């Protein structure tokens, strides 16, 4: 597991916001551990101006993302709700056999 952050050295985030991000990353990593059968994972936080971007990525078995359009799974619904709650935007990349990569961008609260 690799963790790296850029531009966050002297950033203070409000608590609701940071806990929301934490829960999202936690849920994704939980999926990685449970399903992906991955050997490595990256968690990356970067901040530019007033935007935080978060990437969570693994080299596991991946999945067909089209199943998510009908998914009623609690985990996935949670991730979506939390991203929506902090007005984030998700770019999800995954295909069977090619690992999974979540890239999310969040406007920082004033």
């Amino acid at each position, binding site marked *: 597991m*690799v963790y*790296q952050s*850029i*531009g966050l050295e002297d950033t203070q985030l409000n608590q609701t916001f940071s806990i929301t991000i934490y829960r999202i990353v936690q849920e994704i990593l939980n999926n990685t551990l449970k399903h992906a059968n991955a050997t490595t994972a*990256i968690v*990356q936080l*970067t901040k*530019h101006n007033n*935007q935080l*971007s978060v*990437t969570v*990525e693994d080299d596991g078995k991946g999945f067909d993302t089209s199943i998510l359009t009908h998914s009623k799974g609690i985990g996935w619904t949670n991730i979506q709700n939390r991203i929506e709650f902090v007005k984030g*935007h998700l*770019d999800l*990349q995954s295909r069977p056999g090619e*690992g999974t*990569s979540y*890239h999310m*961008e969040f406007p920082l609260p004033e």
Partner: protein
Amino acid sequence: MATKIFIVDDHYMVIEGIRSILQEEKSIEWMGHASTAASCLAFLQKQQPDIILMDINLPDMSGIDLCKEVREKYPSTFIVGLSTFNQQSFIQRMMENGASGYVLKNATQEELMEAFQTVLKGKVYLSDDVSQTLRKNADAQIPVLTRREKEVLELIAEGLTNIEIASRLFISTTTVDTHRKNLLAKFDVRNTAALVKYAMLHKLI
């Protein structure tokens, strides 16, 4: 029994040079050469040498990838990387992919023979210059890139604009810009030109 040597390199003069260096060595049996990865793999289907001297830059495939493939298919054949590049990233990736040693093209006959003897014992051989490079650059690690960052980096190197990259990857231009900024920060470079140079230098693209 003579050690069977095979060489994969796309430079004729290098092949002939090494062949003439090794000609007088009684303990060496020259099996021949291949100038592409494909012809190397074809040769290996018929005969397996004890040691392959493998160039990093091949016309159809990188030696780094070829090394991995050969080691998987023919685990009893040792591979010694051969290159003019004395660069940590190349050497490291070659070794990660199963090479037993790495010599530079300025190696002497003695060095080459020592390399063969060492790897045949199952040990790792690195020429002096190479091991110095590895030590010197131990701190200057290449940063870890995410999948999107790699994709964006490749498209930047192809000369595409943020807008073009965005439509190619089905993401917004601001997201492309985020990736671009992250790349600049990770490599600690000031602009895109320096970014591309760094990436080329370290064989990331």
